[in-house]
């Protein structure tokens, strides 16, 4: 285990964590403000990757494909919000879980119908291939650094949006009291649609950026969704700060455990332990605080 | 043993900058009917929450029957004899009125890990339930689904459930809330019948009931107890009138 390898894995962990953050913050915002559990969030991640692939095939240019993919994801999100999510705001968790689960089933099958079952590899944009020497003797892929930077920028923009703008104030107010915000003459429906679209675009962004790394396939969003949910449980529902801290914890913990555990324990059960490590972390956090580390709302 | 059944000792709870409960000290004697009054937003709900164990105080303690219950769960406190009725009706919608009270009776048993006998056939639960329903004026409607009852009947059911647990003390949270004239009179009589049998902490807005029933009254304003004493003392207390009615001049503008 060299230092260079450890540093590289740490970078990977942070990068993975930031991707999870983009997913988790969407989940936590939508639940914190609209009180909706959206299991179809993983589908938006998956659709981001698929739309990128489709746009690439059509335009042959990343510069065009990326914005197109965003537009596609945003369009899907808006339609979803109006048709399926809006009736769910007043319903209980069971209805929300089942309806969005149904959506996930639909989307997973729909991409299979259109693009088939096989995973489709995407290549890294030509400008971003190559590597950077982060430490003597250690070359780290440029692409991974770039998407890490993009995620950080997205996070900062989100922070500024929520804390410094009128819309952000409305978002925070809307989470406390729908009726008052509506009474102020602000269109709650529009606000919620915007929030949902925002969360969907963050998920799609993660999907677009991970596309070249993970390859695009039906159900690609499901394991990511589950990890994002673990992040929200650890970080606390409704807390953006919790989503960040939780995501970094999960990202780093997961990545490092995949490397370190096989080194420490050489048994048949190793791969089981590796996959389970994150859930053990979640269990430990739950024992410590049943609402997560930074719960903004009381359950 | 102390003459006080409930002692609240320098209790404090803040939500951020808002001091919902500000160094509250209050004691209720055994057998006493003690009313807690105060304007809306005074912190009564927060105080009740801390008494029942749903909220954790930042500082202070609560002693019940000589025992420090500050860290105990809601269920433990109920088992020790502190029963509570809810301001906003809180019943079991899928059961009948009798079922609701029977479940409260069931709670007095050491445990309910009994899986075989259908509960609706167990006489030792139904008989006390029926008699309690009669006591609170619901004797004829035992078999009605609780979800179908009127608001007034709900308030009676609330009381019945609290009584069913054979408590030492009743914490009644606005039992008169939303009642019409006839219903208020009936509830008032019912409460009067309980006086003396139980130690009662009564939270109420209805001043007629408060002044006719309470042995002592405490006034909660802005999270603090601003006055505590007999009905006459409170009636004539200048601070209370200001807190409730605003400055003297406003009296003339107020309705009624």
């Amino acid at each position, binding site marked *: 285990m060299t230092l260079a390898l450890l540093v590289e894995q740490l970078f990977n962990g942070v990068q993975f964590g930031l991707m999870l953050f983009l997913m988790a913050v969407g989940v936590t915002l939508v639940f914190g403000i609209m009180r909706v559990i959206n299991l179809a969030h993983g589908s938006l991640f998956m659709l981001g990757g698929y739309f990128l692939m489709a746009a690439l095939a059509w335009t042959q240019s990343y510069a065009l494909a990326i914005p197109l993919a965003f537009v596609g994801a945003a369009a899907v999100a808006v339609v979803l919000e109006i048709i399926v999510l809006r009736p769910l705001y007043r319903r209980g968790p069971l209805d929300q879980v089942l309806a969005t689960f149904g959506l996930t089933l639909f989307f997973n099958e729909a991409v299979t119908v259109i693009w088939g079952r096989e995973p489709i590899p995407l290549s890294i944009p030509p400008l971003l291939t190559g590597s950077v020497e982060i430490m003597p003797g250690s070359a780290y892929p440029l692409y991974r650094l770039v998407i890490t930077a993009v995620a950080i920028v997205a996070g900062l923009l989100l922070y500024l949006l929520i804390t410094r703008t009128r819309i952000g104030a409305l978002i925070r107010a809307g989470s406390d009291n729908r009726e008052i915000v509506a009474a102020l003459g602000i269109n709650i429906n529009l606000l919620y649609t915007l929030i949902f679209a925002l969360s969907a675009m963050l998920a799609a962004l993660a999907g677009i950026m991970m596309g070249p790394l993970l390859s695009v396939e039906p159900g690609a969003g499901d394991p990511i969704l589950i990890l994002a949910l673990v992040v929200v449980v650890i970080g606390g529902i409704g807390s953006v700060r919790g989503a960040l801290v939780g995501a970094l914890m999960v990202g780093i913990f997961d990545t490092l455990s995949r490397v370190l555990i096989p080194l420490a324990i050489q048994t048949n059960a190793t791969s089981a332990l590796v996959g389970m490590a994150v*859930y053990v972390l979640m269990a430990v956090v739950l024992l410590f605080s049943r609402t997560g580390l930074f719960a903004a709302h009381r359950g | 043993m102390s003459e006080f059944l409930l002692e609240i000792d320098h209790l404090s709870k803040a939500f951020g900058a808002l001091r919902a409960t500000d160094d509250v000290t209050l004691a209720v004697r055994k057998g006493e009917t003690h009313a807690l009054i105060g304007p809306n937003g005074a912190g009564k709900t927060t105080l009740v929450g801390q008494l029942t164990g749903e909220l954790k105080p930042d500082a202070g303690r609560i002693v019940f029957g000589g025992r420090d219950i500050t860290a105990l769960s809601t269920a433990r406190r109920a088992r020790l004899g502190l029963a509570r009725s809810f301001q906003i009706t809180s019943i079991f919608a899928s059961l009948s009125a009798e079922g609701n009270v029977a479940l409260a009776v069931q709670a007095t048993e050491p445990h309910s890990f009994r899986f075989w006998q259908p509960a609706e056939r167990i006489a030792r639960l139904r008989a006390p339930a*029926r008699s309690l329903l009669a006591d609170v004026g619901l004797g004829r409607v035992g078999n009605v689904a609780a979800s179908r009852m009127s608001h007034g009947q709900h308030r009676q059911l609330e009381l019945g459930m609290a009584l069913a647990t054979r408590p030492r003390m009743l914490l009644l949270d606005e039992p008169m809330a939303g009642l019409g004239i006839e219903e208020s009179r009936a509830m008032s009589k019912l409460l009067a019948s309980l006086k003396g049998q139980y130690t009662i902490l009564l939270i109420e807005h209805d001043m007629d009931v408060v002044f006719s029933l309470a042995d002592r009254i405490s006034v909660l304003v802005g999270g603090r107890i601003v006055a505590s004493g007999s009905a006459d003392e409170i009636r004539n207390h200048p601070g209370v009138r200001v807190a409730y009615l605003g400055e003297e001049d406003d009296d003339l503008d107020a309705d009624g």
Partner: protein
Amino acid sequence: MTLPARRGALLVVLLALAIALPPYFGIYYVRFATQIAIYGMAALSVDLLLGYSGLITFGQAALFGVGAYAAGMLTVYGVTEAFVVWPCAILVSMLAAGAIGALSLRTRGFQFIMVTLAFAQMAYYFAQSLRNWGGDDGFTVPQRDHLGPLALTDHTTFYYVVLALLVLVALFAHRIVRSQFGRVIRGIRDNERRVAAIGFPPYPYKLVIFVIAGGIAGLAGALMANHAKFVSPATMSWQLSGELLAMVILGSANSLIGPVIGAAFFLAFRDVLSDYTEHWMLFFGPLLVARVLLVKDGIWGMLLRGVGIEEANGSPKLDYDQSADPIADAEPGASR
């Protein structure tokens, strides 16, 4: 005929159909009916948690899978006596449910759903990692267990055994739900705050029902291992958990029979549509969404209303026996 008696008559009719019809139509349908009964049992366990306790679990498939793996492994090791293997599977899944429940039940609502989902996923990864047991591909079970002297290789015999177990489980669950314990559990579903306020600590009761439901799911899993003679991590997937929830709600939650009907509907839907297209999920997804958004009740509820047994206004199911004599039972010490 009183309401409960009419409902009982309808159930008897359904049971008679379940006994007579499948063999009449042939082996394929017997096997299909067996599958319905097994998934119905698993869905019933979900209803115990969902409909009766208010616990929305997205992880019941994990307990189903644990039962399947336990039964499969024992049979591979040569233990083929069902009277040993099946209770073992139940026990193992109850232990697993105890472990999962002990942690998850400390959370509520949204968190509980996510935590059960996460633990189910953990079980799935664990199963995938079992290299000696086929990893992701799973393993085949060499033979069905035998129930004492009764061999279960014949599909029809096996079907009747599974059906009998389903009926037993349903009766057992029905009993529990009406008991004192069941009252507390339903109280927790209706109003957990009030349950605590009258003196019941909710956590132990929730844990017990969670373990009971886990045992039932484990039995269903063991039966599945016998039915398919094949066990794989797919039996633990969160998609299956979601499908079980869907079966409950399609059939009518809070009814014990509804989930079985929901299972029948789901499997029939899949069976019929996959003859036309492998992409039948494309239709099931929206169907589920439509059911949630547009329809108030499940199939069993609609059936009861259609036959005139329940009220039409969707009021909450009344859980007390309206035929009990109010006078005679009022005397203290009246005969039970």
